[in-house]
């Protein structure tokens, strides 16, 4: 399972995340996920609840307090994440590792304007004057294809559209300038043209700056055309790994079933096929 890059910045070996269940035991949401990441784009796809976000959150140290994270190894650039202190994890999150969270409406501060939130991120990373901070924030909003940055700077989260909130999150990530980015459904609320423009930004960060990218999404078409490799998750496990563009060659019946569920331009399939889940897939 080696990526195109020799140096692996992230090593995850047999990651497990479990949560207390109603019977008083623990239920595993992530059940032994292993992968290595170089300076490349790794996609994680899979249905809702398959453990994609929980995998990303465990790497960042953002698992809910009641959850239990175990692994044989979990290292970022030689740093043992399993045995780092909460303070070390926080320092990494604020600096070298960033995550764009799935739900912008929940991750943005509802009582602070979009611009102030970006400036706050900037303050945490560099010493700049008020004036310079504002200019940098506006510039970053422009970079994520916000049409009218001056207007959006002063808007509160409830005053921006779904896709604008997602772009605000990406703007904050750009300011943080991380070595490793875990992007959880970063573009799901965006129209396809803006989506591609943002992917092009992420693409350049990987190619030019050597950032490592874990791209979590349920958009099979997008992941398949954008990522170097794809992990397909089902019920907390990786059931298949595909290479770039390899969606059509998927072998696992689950992956093939997912692809088959998608409506296609110019085809009339009513009703759409749905997934017939097999118990043996979850073994």
């Amino acid at each position: 399972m080696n990526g195109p890059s020799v140096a692996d910045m992230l090593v995850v070996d047999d990651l497990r995340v479990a949560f207390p269940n109603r019977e008083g035991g623990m239920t595993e949401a992530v059940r032994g996920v292993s992968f290595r990441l170089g300076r490349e784009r790794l996609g994680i796809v899979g249905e809702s609840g398959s453990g994609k976000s929980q995998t990303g959150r465990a790497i960042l140290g953002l698992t809910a307090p009641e959850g239990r994270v175990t692994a044989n190894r979990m290292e970022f650039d030689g740093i043992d994440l399993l045995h780092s202190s909460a303070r070390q994890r926080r320092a990494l999150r604020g600096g070298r590792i960033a995550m764009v969270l799935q739900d912008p409406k929940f991750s943005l501060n509802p009582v602070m304007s979009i611009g102030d939130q970006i400036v706050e991120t900037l303050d945490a990373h560099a010493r700049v004057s008020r004036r310079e901070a504002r200019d940098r924030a506006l510039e970053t909003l422009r970079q994520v294809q916000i049409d009218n940055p001056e207007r959006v700077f002063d808007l509160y989260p409830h005053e921006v559209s779904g896709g604008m909130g997602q772009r605000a999150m990406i703007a904050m990530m750009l300011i943080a300038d991380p070595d490793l980015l875990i992007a959880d459904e970063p573009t799901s609320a965006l129209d396809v043209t803006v989506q591609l423009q943002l992917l092009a930004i992420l693409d350049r960060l990987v190619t030019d700056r050597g950032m490592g990218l874990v791209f979590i999404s349920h958009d099979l078409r997008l992941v398949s055309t954008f990522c170097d490799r794809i992990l397909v998750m089902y019920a907390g496990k990786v059931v298949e790994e595909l290479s770039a563009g390899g969606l059509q060659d998927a072998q696992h019946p689950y992956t093939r079933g997912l692809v088959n569920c998608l409506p296609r331009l110019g085809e009339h399939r009513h009703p759409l096929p749905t997934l017939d889940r097999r118990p043996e897939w979850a073994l």
Partner: protein
Amino acid sequence: MTARPVAAGLAIDNLSVVYDEFTAVDNVSIRVEPGQSFGIVGESGSGKSTILRAVCGLAPRTAGAVSLVAPPGDRTGALPAPGSREFRRRVQMVFQDPYGSLHPRQTIDRTLAEPLAIHRMGDAETRIERALDEVGLGKGFRFRYPHQLSGGQRQRVAIARALILEPQILLLDEPTSALDASVQAEVLNLLEEMRRRHGLTFVLVSHDLAVVTHMCERLMVMQRGRRVEELSADDLALSRVSDPYTQRLMVASRGFRRGGPEAA
């Protein structure tokens, strides 16, 4: 099932929505015939959600008119005006965000009982059970909270909440963009079945062109608050589009291309 009134369509004439100085929707008109399904696609921030919200009275209507359309030859009488309680019952919206649109501390039962109370519709017990049943959620879900449901199950609850008032028109704002492929297929099939069974009229916002052409006969493309063009789903599927923005949308919908035009 109580007898429903016949299907109703929706007409939006020269609608504008202005926030302070900013024009979110600029003089947009559409006409959806009774029982039809109409799609809206376009740029993020172009005013798609705002149009649906203005129809429901959730966004300020600065100019223009919204009205229901009776089927040809129908003489059953006056149609309710926007803002009236009856209009608000007949036109229901399913929101963009399945995580935010349900009240986190309310059981599914309360979520479904509330609109019935507001619209003084009796027989709540039966209606709630029937609505859950229709969207494929059994009675077992009735007393659960939203955080105990998956994204797809929440979206089914949102659809049940809209259907429980026996509406004629459903306004669907990105009903499946937060869902995975298999759940999306289930929800789209459910919506089509509901449309057929109840003779509903749909206005569907989505950024997925394949979803829109699957669900709708006609669609409008929007950019910066304005209508760019209106075309049939077949035109789109066969790439018979005239506007450059629509053409870009079509190319983009095929996925990412390294060194593509966006990379510049």
